[in-house]
């Protein structure tokens, strides 16, 4: 592996600045959606990515345009990390026709064809097969794309995780399995659902490589993932990454998170990925504390703008109700 040519993030001021601000964008976006949800301007389920920003941003820094990404319902962060228009993302969460999937999917179902974001899926573990399918298609078409499958540690006990690891290994599919272990699956701590919480050890049986990583540190994630993604792309051998992270909020907005202590939450907040990357920017002398804060302020203002835009955007027209059920024209259909 051409390890030498991969510079560490700390030595790439432009990228570090960009990735840091992506994390800030996600953080502010999510804070805003929670507020709007509490104001009942957003409905359904809303799962914030706050606390986990380093994972999505750090991993997807290595995504090439032809690569694919798939994840669970906790998908805003990855959508934004991929560079989908925040306006369209916000509009989607507000259920507007200007949303990325025309208000039909909502918060849990972000998709983007340009960037090969294959969802946003609501069923725990439902995304694994889709992810390996994208890798299969890349091999089929003799392209060189990698498929990133993000999932919570709560999906590890679902059989589908194992089926797809076996399949990806057998078929030599270029897949990166990324377990975002935020310690909880709803109200259940990982130790109560997994016979083994060292999730990267699951790789061994499938004869693929497993890696454990701190999920709260952007530059570490970025640096380690660079090599791994490169190797997967070259060897077409899947890899499993276990990232320990934490969601600062409840499972969804309606969860008061009483199953954990305030102390625990505080401990993890000391480890905030945004603080760390801000510190790095300052300590390396790339930016002043003021510049960092000014940019954050800009982001906050921008989010306010796009909330206003989303609120004033049109709902999907009623004609859309029965559109997009089938792609092909149907003759003689008859039902109600």
């Amino acid at each position, binding site marked *: 592996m051409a390890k030498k040519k991969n510079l560490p993030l700390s030595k790439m001021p432009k990228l570090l600045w960009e990735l840091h601000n992506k994390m800030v964008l996600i953080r502010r976006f999510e804070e805003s959606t929670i507020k709007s949800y509490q104001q009942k301007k957003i*409905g*359904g*389920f809303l799962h914030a990515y706050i606390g986990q920003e380093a994972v999505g941003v750090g991993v997807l820094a290595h995504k090439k345009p032809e690569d694919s990404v798939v994840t669970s319902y906790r998908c805003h962060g990855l959508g934004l990390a991929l560079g989908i228009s925040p306006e369209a993302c916000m509009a989607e969460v507000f*259920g*507007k*026709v200007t949303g990325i999937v025309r*208000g*039909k*999917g*909502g*918060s*849990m*179902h972000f998709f983007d064809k340009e960037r090969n974001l294959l969802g946003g*899926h*609501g*069923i*725990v*573990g*439902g995304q694994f097969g889709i992810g390996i399918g994208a890798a299969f298609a890349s091999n089929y078409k003799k392209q060189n794309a990698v498929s990133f499958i993000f999932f919570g540690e*709560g*999906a590890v*006990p*679902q*059989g*589908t995780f194992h089926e797809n690891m076996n399949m990806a290994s057998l078929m030599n599919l270029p897949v990166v399995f990324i377990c975002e272990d935020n310690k909880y*699956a*709803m*109200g*259940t701590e990982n130790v*109560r*659902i*997994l016979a083994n919480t060292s999730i990267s050890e699951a790789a061994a049986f499938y004869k693929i490589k497993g890696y454990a990583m701190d999920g709260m540190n952007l530059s570490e994630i970025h640096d380690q993932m660079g090599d791994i993604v490169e190797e997967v792309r070259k060897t077409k051998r899947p890899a499993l990454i276990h990232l320990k992270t934490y969601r600062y909020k409840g499972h969804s907005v309606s969860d008061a998170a009483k*199953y954990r202590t305030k102390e625990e939450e505080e401990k993890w907040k000391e480890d905030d990925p945004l603080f760390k990357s801000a510190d790095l920017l300052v300590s390396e002398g790339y930016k002043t504390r003021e510049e960092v804060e000014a940019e954050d302020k800009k982001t906050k203002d921008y989010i306010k703008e796009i909330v206003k835009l989303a609120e004033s955007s049109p*709902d*999907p027209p*009623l004609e*859309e*109700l*029965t559109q*997009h*059920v089938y792609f092909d024209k149907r003759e003689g259909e008859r*039902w*109600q």
Partner: protein
Amino acid sequence: MAVITVREALNQAINEEMARDENVFIIGEEVAEYNGAYKISEGLLDKYGKRRVVDTPISESSFTGLSIGAAMSGLRPIVEYMSFNFSLVAMDQIISNIAKMYYMTGGMYNIPIVLRGCNGAAAQVSSQHSHNMESFFAHMPGLNVISCSDAADSKGLLKAAIRSNDPVIFLENEMLYGTSGEVPDEEYVIPIGKGRLVRSGDDVTIIAHSRMMIYAKEAAAELEKMGIQVDLIDPRTLKPLDYPLISESVKKTNRVVIVEEGHYWCGIGSQIAEFIYRDLFDYLDSQIIRVAQSENPMPYAKGLEAASLPSTKKIIEAVQQVTYTGAPS
């Protein structure tokens, strides 16, 4: 009579049956320490302990299978699916094992199991979280299917389900959990297979279950003002169906509207309609009108979601159609 919520009614039913029979246990995601994702199992862990109130990983297929094996070994499991959308990953266990077991073993192993949880749409939970599973389950011989609309029925029928020696699919509705109703103070069990006449009228029969009963009741009240008297039936048990109750009503009203939250094609309403048409053909003064979810997956946007679902207005229009009282078109 006490007034309690559907949530409390379900909780009481489980609690009373667990107190009554040591072999009853409840298993599922978040049922124990979290007291249930929707708090149906509130307090049970404290009272009965970890042995009988069992948290699981997100492994629906496994804990459904476990419960089958436990039932074959003398226990009486209550399986909670956080929602029936997630029962899809356990579908093979439900159909291939639960529904077939008693028959396939020539009567050797019956499966006293209750599979329960939210069914259908909630509020804007979108495409993958809004399935109605009534007809899936009613299609397969070997299963009973129950779906109640109020607290009293929920309690009485869940108790019956737990006592049943056959598998019961018990379909709840998130939007009903917080609704209140009167419940008898003394212990009671409602027999599986008995429907309920919710209100009586001569002009038209409306059949509705679960959350649809809210709209059906509203519609009936509106229709009364318009001079149309509704015989309103809640089958409660969808399979076996209280056909005598329905039959009696149809013979009286000669007109029928069937409401269901789920989809139209092969919905439970298609079967109820077919029974009526087949057996009471000469009693009908109009074709039956069904009110059901529109023919699309459930959209997220609030307006589209509302347009997808049956409503009081749609039920009224359907009644006007079968009674020929609507505006001339």
